């Protein structure tokens, strides 16, 4: 007589005679303690367990992962019950003792256990023992038992490894005067910290995972599944928040064209636009020699920054979003306060157009490159911190950790500099002149827009060109490319026909061709906070493209139609209206406060 587990039968299952699985026989011979059969109260016979579903995964592995999860989450009763019912245990006795000895610091027992557990290769056994002895050595040093520590170093650590550099580093730790010094010098958090747990984790690499299941294995597997869903997501502009019950997928079409918002306000071609790091503002620079700061909630104009004598070619937000630097063809850079719109500094030092500028991690220093063979690091108080001569800089990008500086020169090379010392490291050669560069946030990938109309992507770890994106049209005018989407998963660039091209970075598939502008798109900028792309074009407008309905940047619910910055609805040819608008708005220009001039 067989009974199924739990309450209701599975649909389609014949309750009278479900076939017992072949693994039931294995259960009976299971080596682990405890019966594999369940005793139902009131029944004399033992009923075999009925599995409701065939699975491709080995039952022992699945059950032991479940046991680990139950154990970690503190369900002690269920843990014991599952061990009894399934016949599997999470860890055998020797392993459990091994684990507890490490966490308790009983090094003699640990050494013994390592021998009995069995580590396959000879040099692995040495490496494993080295890890244990190193922890013992450090703990003895921390307890100021220098003599015993020295004995371990001389007699045991030195025989276990041939890495003399590490031995020297360990012996230098003997000199540390206080335990705090020891901890900082060895990058170690002490015997009572997480270090013993970390030793256990590193020893896992030497013990077969069948004997000792890697820590939080089920959670690792879940994380991999979510990461895979994100990687294969076509658009990936929304974070994966759907939990474990459903697969993550971004909407069928990213950047729905009906959500676009057109901003007018500049009197001439808009050459640069970028969102602030916190997503609250958008800054734009134009051929009309002014910059505008827009509020991203309602796209109203917050400040108009006037003062440059030449067209504004580049803008950079400080990391704390309080300052903004503009670079211009009048050979200067200007620093502005975002809150007040006040002009704080003028930086004179370049002899030609300043092509590009980037902040260096803090909000005190930034680097600029010009067509005059100079790269200059400035301080916000106006002084030059460092200056080097370089190839003519057409564009420069800085990695997030401020270690890498990439420069596009006028001879179709990309130069990489170590930013900490401003020394040249290596070249990446392109077949045509590089017009603009973009760097991913993790500094792994770099984009180069070429004069020939191709967008090249480089892998900076291997220094190889791994992908080419084509389809957009490009001529003599600088079109700036950018990474977009979550985790820089998308690549976007403008085109001379006024459409915006968006590709999936990893598959190279063209995802969208956004139409709306009537002239060359010069630049695009993505904001994760606003989940939108901003583009600026020669038609004097800026357009905001929210990535999906309901994005923070999407305010189509309010007006129901794409609108302009001043609230009127957008129409097809705006050009005459724009000129009139700018005549009246021009009177609101903030006059520049007294700026500090340099003599060169």
């Amino acid at each position, binding site marked *: 007589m067989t009974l199924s587990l739990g309450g209701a039968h599975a649909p389609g299952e014949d309750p009278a005679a479900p076939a017992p699985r072949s693994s039931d026989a294995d259960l009976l011979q299971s080596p682990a303690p405890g019966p594999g059969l369940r005793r139902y109260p009131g029944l004399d016979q033992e009923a075999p367990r009925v599995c409701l579903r065939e699975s491709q995964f080995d039952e022992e592995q699945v059950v032991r992962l479940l046991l680990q999860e139950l154990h970690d989450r503190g369900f002690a009763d269920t843990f014991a019950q599952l061990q009894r019912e399934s016949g599997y245990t999470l860890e055998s006795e020797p392993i459990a003792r091994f684990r507890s000895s490490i966490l308790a610091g009983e090094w003699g027992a640990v050494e013994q256990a390592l021998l009995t557990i069995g580590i396959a290769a000879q040099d692995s056994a040495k490496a494993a023992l080295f890890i244990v002895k190193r922890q013992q050595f450090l703990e003895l040093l921390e307890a100021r038992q220098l003599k015993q520590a020295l004995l371990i170093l001389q007699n045991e650590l030195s025989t276990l490894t041939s890495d003399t550099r590490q031995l020297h580093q360990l012996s230098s730790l003997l000199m540390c005067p206080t335990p705090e010094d020891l901890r900082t010098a060895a990058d170690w958090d002490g015997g009572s910290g997480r270090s013993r747990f970390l030793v256990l984790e590193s020893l896992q690499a030497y013990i077969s995972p069948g004997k000792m299941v890697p820590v939080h294995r089920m959670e690792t597997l879940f994380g991999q599944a979510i990461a895979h869903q994100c990687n294969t997501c076509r658009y990936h502009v929304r974070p994966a928040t759907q939990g474990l019950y459903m697969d993550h997928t971004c909407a069928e079409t990213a950047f729905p064209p009906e959500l676009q918002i057109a901003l007018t306000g500049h009197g001439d*071609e808009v050459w640069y636009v970028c969102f602030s790091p916190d997503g609250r503002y958008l800054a734009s620079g134009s051929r009309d020699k002014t910059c505008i700061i827009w509020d991203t909630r309602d796209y109203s104009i917050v400040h108009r920054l006037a003062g440059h004598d030449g*067209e504004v070619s580049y803008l950079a937000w400080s990391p704390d979003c309080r300052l903004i630097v503009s670079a211009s*063809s009048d050979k200067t850079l200007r620093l502005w306060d975002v809150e007040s719109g006040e002009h704080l500094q003028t930086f004179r030092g370049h002899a030609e157009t300043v092509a590009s500028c980037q902040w260096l991690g803090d909000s005190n220093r930034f680097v600029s490159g010009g067509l005059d063979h100079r790269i200059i690091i400035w301080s916000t108080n106006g002084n030059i911190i460092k200056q080097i001569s370089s190839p003519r800089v*057409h564009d420069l990008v800085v990695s997030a950790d401020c270690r890498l500086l990439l420069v596009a020169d006028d001879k179709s090379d990309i130069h990489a500099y170590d930013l900490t010392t401003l020394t040249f490291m290596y070249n990446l050669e392109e077949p045509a002149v590089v017009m603009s560069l973009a760097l991913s946030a993790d500094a792994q990938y770099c984009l180069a827009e070429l*004069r020939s109309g191709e967008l090249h992507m480089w892998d900076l770890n291997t220094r190889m060109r791994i992908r080419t994106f084509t389809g957009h049209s490009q001529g003599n*005018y600088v079109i700036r490319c950018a990474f977009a989407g979550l985790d820089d998963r998308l690549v976007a660039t403008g085109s001379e026909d006024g459409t915006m091209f968006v590709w999936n970075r990893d598959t190279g598939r063209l995802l969208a061709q956004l139409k709306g502008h009537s002239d060359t798109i010069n630049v695009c900028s993505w904001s994760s906070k606003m989940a939108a792309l901003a583009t600026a074009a020669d038609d004097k407008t800026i357009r905001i493209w929210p990535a999906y309905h309901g994005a923070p940047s999407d305010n189509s619910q309010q007006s129901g139609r794409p609108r302009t910055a001043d609230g009127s609805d957008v129409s097809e040819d705006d050009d005459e209206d724009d000129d009139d608008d700018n005549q009246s708005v021009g009177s609101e220009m903030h006059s520049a406060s007294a700026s500090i001039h340099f003599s060169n």
Partner: protein
Amino acid sequence: MGYMHQVFFGGKGVYACRDCHTHIALRSRVESRYTGQYGRAILFIDVVNVRAGSEDKRSMTTGVHIVRDIYCMKCHKYVGWTYIKAFEPDQRFKEGKFILERELVYDVTREWGVC
């Protein structure tokens, strides 16, 4: 129009805008030299860093042509013109080429040594 990518030449024989020193043409791209009604002029096969204005029908000593005036991309000063169409058959070779007025440009390497 847009943010024009400024080209720089290396080596010798670089003609640049007299006002802002933006490079415009190379001596190796000279086809011929003239003295026309506007003064000395040089015919180049190609030039860089200039923007062209609108088309204009002009009659010159050599005949009627459709030309576009060209301006330095940096300072926007007039530097010469380019031939779009020539109506005289013997002038057709000029189509697509550029005239720079000798007074408005200068050989940057000859006057400064390097560019």
